[in-house]
C-alpha cells in the first residue's frame, strides 16, 4: 500500500464505490454552485455541510468536503471572467484579463482555456501529492513533541504573516484563535477554562459555530446593501464559444505550464495558498511576455497562467494537511477539524493508518475534476443563469442554512447564539482591518499545540533549549526567524523588487 501506484488503485476502488461517488459528486456540485454565486464563500459552504457529514463514513465526508473546495475554484472562474466580480480571492486576478476578453466577445474562449488550465494544473497538483505526501509523512514519522511544536509554530506564523493584510494583525489573530481553541475542559487536568460557568462551553467552542460566525454572519453584515450591482450584459455564452482557436492554444500552452509550476511551488510553502499563487503567476507572465502592454486588455496568457496555478496550488494545499496534520490556510484548517470530529487523528500516521481516506481522497480528486469538467463545459449555460440570482434572495436563505447547520452540529441552540455573537465580533474585527482567517488556523491547532508544548517540556524537564538542541526543530525555528526577518525587511526597507501586482494581491478580496 505504500507505493504510489498500489495505493492509487486502492484509492480508486474506494472513490468509485457508488456511495462515495455520489458524495463526491454532491461536493463538487455544491462547490461549483458556491463558486458561481457571487457573495458566497467556500468556508461557509463547508461549515454548513459539515454537520450533515456526522452521520456519514469519514471517507465519504472528507471526499465531499474537499470537493466543495476544489469545485468552487471552477465556479469562481466563471464569476470572475463573465461578471468582473472577484468574489473568490484566488480568481481576483483573472478578472484583469478575463473580463476584457468577455467584453471583446471572447468570454467563452477565456472559459475554455480556464478549463484546460484548471485540468492541467489540478492533474499536476494531484501527482505531486501522490509522490510527495507519503514521502513527507515518512520523514515526519521521526518527529517528537518538540519538532511537532516547532513545525506548528512555523505553520501558524506562515499562515498569519504571508496571507493578506498586516502581518502584526495576522499574528494577533492566530493567537486569538489559539486562545479560543483552548476554551473548555483541559484534557490534562480537567479544569474548565474560559467557560464562564456555561455548561455548553465545557466541550469547547463548536468549530462550526466559529467558522459560520466569522465567515458567514460577519460576511453578511458586511455585504448587506453593500454589493456591487451585477453587470449581466455579457453573460450569453454557448458551448460552441468555449472552443479556443489554435492560436489561443499555442499562446496559452507555456503560461499554463509556468502557472502550474508556480502554483505547486507555492503550495509547498506553508501559508501561501492559491491566492498568492495566482498573483505571482500573473506577475510572472507579465514579466516574461514580449508584449506586456497587452495585459489588462484581454491577454489570454493572463487568464491561463493564474487559473492553472490556482488549481495546482489548491490540490497541493492538501499535502501538508494530510501528511503532517498542519493546515496551510483556513479551508484546510476546517477540513482538518472535520477529520478530528470524525475521530481521525491527523498527522504523519494518517496515510498508514487510514489509507482508505488518503488514497480515496486522491482518487476522488481525479474523479471530481473530471466531473467538474463535464459539469462545466456542456452545462455552462445553466451556471451562467445562476449568476443572475440576486444577492437579496441569496443571503436570507443562506442565513437560515447557517442557523440550522449550527444547530444540527450538536442539537444546541446555545451554539446558534454563539454563532451570532461571534459573527458580530467578526464584523467588528473586519471593521478594524483584521483578517479573521488565521483565527480558524489557530483554533484548530490550539489544543494540539498546547499538548505538544507541554509534552516537550515535560520530557526535557522544563528546559526550553530542547527546541534549539534538536536539529530538526532548530531548523523549523530558524525558518520562523527567517520569516520574521523577511517581513521586517520588506516592511521597513520597502525594496523595489516587489512590484505592484504582488502587493495588490494583499488587498483584493
Amino acid at each position, binding site marked *: 500500500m505504500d507505493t504510489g501506484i498500489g495505493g492509487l488503485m486502492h484509492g480508486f476502488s474506494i472513490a468509485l464505490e457508488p456511495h462515495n461517488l455520489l458524495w463526491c459528486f454532491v461536493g463538487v456540485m455544491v462547490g461549483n454552485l458556491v463558486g458561481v454565486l457571487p457573495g458566497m464563500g467556500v468556508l461557509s459552504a463547508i461549515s454548513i455541510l459539515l454537520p450533515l457529514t456526522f452521520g456519514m463514513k469519514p471517507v465519504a465526508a472528507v471526499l465531499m468536503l474537499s470537493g466543495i473546495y476544489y469545485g468552487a475554484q471552477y465556479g469562481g472562474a466563471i464569476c470572475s471572467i463573465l461578471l468582473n466580480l472577484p468574489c473568490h480571492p484566488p480568481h481576483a486576478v483573472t478578472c484583469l484579463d478575463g473580463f476584457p476578453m468577455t467584453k471583446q466577445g471572447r468570454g467563452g474562449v477565456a472559459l475554455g482555456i480556464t478549463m484546460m488550465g484548471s485540468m492541467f494544473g489540478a492533474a499536476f497538483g494531484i501527482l505531486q501529492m501522490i509522490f510527495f505526501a507519503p514521502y513527507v509523512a515518512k520523514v515526519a514519522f521521526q518527529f517528537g513533541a518538540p519538532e511537532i511544536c516547532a513545525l506548528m509554530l512555523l505553520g501558524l506564523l506562515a499562515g498569519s504573516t504571508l496571507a493578506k493584510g498586516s502581518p502584526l494583525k495576522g*499574528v494577533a489573530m492566530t493567537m486569538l484563535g489559539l486562545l479560543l481553541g483552548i476554551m473548555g475542559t483541559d484534557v490534562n487536568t480537567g479544569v474548565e*477554562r474560559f467557560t464562564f460557568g456555561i455548561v455548553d462551553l465545557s466541550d469547547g467552542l463548536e468549530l462550526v459555530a466559529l467558522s459560520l460566525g466569522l465567515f458567514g*454572519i460577519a460576511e*453578511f453584515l458586511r455585504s448587506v446593501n453593500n454589493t456591487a450591482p451585477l453587470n449581466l450584459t455579457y453573460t450569453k455564452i454557448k458551448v460552441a464559444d468555449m472552443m479556443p482557436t489554435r492560436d489561443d492554444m499555442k499562446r496559452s500552452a507555456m503560461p499554463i505550464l509556468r502557472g502550474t509550476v508556480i502554483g505547486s511551488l507555492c503550495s509547498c510553502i506553508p501559508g501561501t495558498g492559491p491566492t498568492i499563487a495566482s498573483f505571482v503567476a500573473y506577475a510572472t507572465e507579465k514579466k516574461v511576455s514580449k508584449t506586456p502592454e497587452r495585459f489588462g486588455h484581454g491577454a489570454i496568457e493572463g487568464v491561463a497562467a493564474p487559473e492553472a496555478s490556482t488549481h495546482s496550488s489548491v490540490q497541493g494545499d492538501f499535502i501538508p494537511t494530510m501528511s503532517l496534520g498542519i493546515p496551510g490556510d483556513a479551508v484546510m484548517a476546517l477540513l482538518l477539524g472535520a477529520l478530528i470530529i470524525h475521530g481521525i487523528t491527523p498527522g504523519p500516521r494518517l496515510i498508514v493508518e487510514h489509507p482508505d481516506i488518503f488514497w480515496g481522497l486522491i482518487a476522488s480528486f481525479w474523479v471530481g475534476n473530471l466531473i467538474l469538467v463535464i459539469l462545466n463545459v456542456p452545462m455552462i449555460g445553466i451556471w451562467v443563469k445562476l449568476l443572475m440570482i440576486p444577492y437579496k434572495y441569496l443571503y436570507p436563505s443562506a442565513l437560515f442554512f447557517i442557523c440550522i447547520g449550527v444547530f444540527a452540529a450538536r442539537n444546541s*441552540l446555545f451554539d446558534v447564539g454563539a454563532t*451570532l455573537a461571534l*459573527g458580530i465580533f467578526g464584523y467588528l474585527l473586519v471593521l*478594524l*482591518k483584521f483578517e479573521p482567517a488565521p483565527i480558524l488556523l489557530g483554533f484548530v491547532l490550539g489544543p494540539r499545540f*498546547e499538548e505538544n508544548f507541554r509534552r516537550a517540556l515535560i520530557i526535557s524537564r522544563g528546559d526550553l533549549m530542547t527546541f534549539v538542541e534538536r536539529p530538526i526543530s532548530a531548523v523549523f525555528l530558524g525558518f520562523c526567524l527567517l520569516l520574521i526577518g523577511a517581513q521586517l525587511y520588506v516592511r521597513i526597507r520597502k525594496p523595489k523588487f516587489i512590484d505592484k501586482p504582488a502587493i495588490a494581491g494583499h488587498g483584493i478580496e
Partner: protein
Amino acid sequence: MISEGRRDYYAGGLMILIGSGAAVIGSTYKVGGLTQMGPGFFPVCLGVLIVIMGVLIMLAARAGAKGGPDIMDAHHALPSHPDWRGWGCIIGSVFAFLVLSDYAGLAPATFFCVFIAASGDNDSHVKASALLAAGITVFAILLFSFVLHVQIPVLKGL
C-alpha cells in the same frame, strides 16, 4: 463610525483588552512553571503575547506604516454610513430563529428567520420577502424534518 486613521489604535486597544482579560482569567487557574505546567500556563502566556501584539499594532499605527486608505482593499472599506436596517435585520433574523425554534417550532422559525433577513435589503418588498420565506420554509420542512430528522418539531403548541 471609526475614522480611517484611528482604526489601528482601536485595533490595538481591542487586542490589549482581550489579551489582558485572558491573562487575568488564566492566572486564576493553576499556572505552574516550565517543568510542571498547570492549566493556566498557556492562557497566561497567550494573553501576555496578545497584549504585546496589541501594543505593537498601536506603535505601527503611530509610525504610520501605511499611507492613506488602501483603494484596492474593498473588503475592509468602511461603510459610508451605518446600515442599521441591514445589521438589525440580520441580527434579528438569527435571534428570531433562536427564540421561535425553541417556542414555536421549525416552520415559524424558518419563515421569520428568512423574512426578517430579507427585509434588511433596502430594495426589498414585503411580498417578495414573504414569498421567499414561504418557499424556503416548505423546502426546509421537507429536507430537515422529513429527510434529515433535525431535532426541532415542525410546529409546537404554544
